[in-house]
């Protein structure tokens, strides 16, 4: 029964075809395992907007609330802090938030104070470097990390610094200004975070 002549072309075709089909099968079988690492439906569902009253936040004070498990900073900025903002422009990476940070805020917060109302800063308190929560250092006094400190944020992880509008200083590891979430004022003393006035998330 032995075949006298071996058909090498046929043998090579069968070997290649088996390898290719087997390879496709292995790759396809890997997809469910890789996809199983994606955020689950339960994790995705936990992202509803949150509402916060501003009545008890004194000037210069910061409140941190959770939204989508992210810390959101709400600061009642003092007139002094607001007055210092334009003076920081030469020391910042993107003072007008229209360069590398163009995507870091909704258009209604793309202004000098990065907010809807000048005094109220609403910001996702996540450093744009590697995701730490920067410390609020609101007082204008010389700090160990900056003798000419004008108030702002200091990240404990890699020493990135931001001003009172979450705009990043030059010469630090963080590349962008901190993110402003979509938000709107329901009334004068209540803010809703997660949706803008038109209801867009």
């Amino acid at each position, binding site marked *: 029964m032995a075949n006298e002549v071996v058909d090498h072309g046929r043998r090579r075709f069968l070997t290649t075809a088996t390898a290719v089909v087997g390879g496709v099968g292995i790759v396809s079988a890997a997809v469910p395992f890789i996809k199983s690492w994606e*955020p689950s439906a339960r994790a995705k569902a936990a992202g509803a907007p949150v509402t916060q009253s501003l009545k008890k936040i004194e000037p210069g004070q910061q409140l941190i609330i959770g939204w989508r*498990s992210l810390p959101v900073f709400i600061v009642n900025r003092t007139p002094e802090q607001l007055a210092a903002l334009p003076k920081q422009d030469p020391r910042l990476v993107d003072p007008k938030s229209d360069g590398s940070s163009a995507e870091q805020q909704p258009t209604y917060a793309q202004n000098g104070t990065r907010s809807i109302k000048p005094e109220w800063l609403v910001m996702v308190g996540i450093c744009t*470097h590697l995701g*730490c929560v920067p410390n609020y250092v609101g007082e204008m006094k010389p700090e*160990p990390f900056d003798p000419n400190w004008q108030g702002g944020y200091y*990240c404990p992880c890699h020493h990135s610094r931001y001003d009172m509008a979450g705009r990043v200083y030059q010469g*630090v*590891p963080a590349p962008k200004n901190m993110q402003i979430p979509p938000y709107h004022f329901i009334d004068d003393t209540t803010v809703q975070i997660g949706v803008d006035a038109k209801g867009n998330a």
Partner: protein
Amino acid sequence: MANVFVRIGDWVNERAPGLAPTYRKHMTEYYAPKNFNLWYYFGSLALLVLVNQIVTGIFLTMNYDPSAAGAFDSVQYIMRDVEWGWLIRYMHTTGASLFFVVVFLHMFRGIMYGSFKKPRELVWLLGMLIFLVLMAEAFMGYVLPWGNMSFWGAKVIVSLFGTIPKIGPGLQEWIMGDFLPADATLNRFFALHVIALPIVLLLLVVLHLAALHEVGSNNPDGVDIKHGPKGNRWDALKPADGIPFHPYYTVKDLAGVGFFLLIAAFIIFFAPTFGGWFLEHDNSIAANNLVTPAQIKPVWYFTAFYAIVRMIPSAFGTAVWGVLGMFGSIALLFALPWIDVGPVKSIRYRGTGYKVALTIFVIAFLCLMAIGMDLTDEYFPKIFGADIDITLWDNVFGRIMTLTYFGFFVFLWLYTHLGWEKTKPVPDRVTTHD
């Protein structure tokens, strides 16, 4: 009675004739150079710590709860309520740090005596893979107690992948299974830490040793005993300067084990946190996603690589450069056999330039460690006065050290590829032969 053992031995040999020769090949008839010194303890010690981590790890899983709600409390439960639980956990945590102590010294030995050079490139590459897996293993283990440092450590390390342009943010969510470290993250890190990575680690260790035993061990003189004269007390065809691994080096290593266990026991019983170096104080606080610890830094063994991330500023709107720098600092070690092509292996017979460069490299590595541990933030004001700009000084110092780290590899490439090295004559045999 003895007869029974002989008969059992024969019974096994008949059915598995390859077992006894394998044992002889790797133990009693593995001829290692007779001039091993202190630096040659760290390979066997690494194996000892690996066994310790596996045994204590198995017992920790018996009481640990891998869920965001229960993890922190279950670790406290192990420490307070489980009989001897504190000892088992401290053996595991101290073992983790000592693992890196012996592995760093083991790697330094390899660099110093040229053990990565031909024909041992594969041994070196497998060893570097072990180092890489060990870092992943240590990082995931560090997350499991779910203290606040665990949480923020996980966040920062996973965010390293988030800096990759385009795919970064999606990749980051994929790794965490959520928008921040959460239950899903903890569960998968537990699975990887206790099952997947230990299996890979064990396989790599077996391959590392198998590759070593194929080519034979290097030694402090960097001469190959296989190319030297033949014939020793045990075998007329084997290297004259070799002695059987068992019993000679097993006994020597046992002495090292005794000394090592003495130090390890002292740490476990008297200084298990090692002043916040092995176990960080902030990790005694449960994970809190809204508050970053005041001073966040990785465990000591990651600090040098971490300092490199910190020292490289963002550019062109992305922070990926620091991450590339960190991975590059490890990738260069992988490539060492092709960067340093000097024909002389051991530092004993290499050029002065090499000795100076290696010394500076070690100093730069230690300085980067100090920067990563924030020691510079603490001591610069004490040395240079309280009114200095720490960020500026830290950055200047750290960037010089980062450049020095990478400069070592550039220098080594030029030094050996362009033939600048003036070596001393290498002896024909190990210097301590009869």
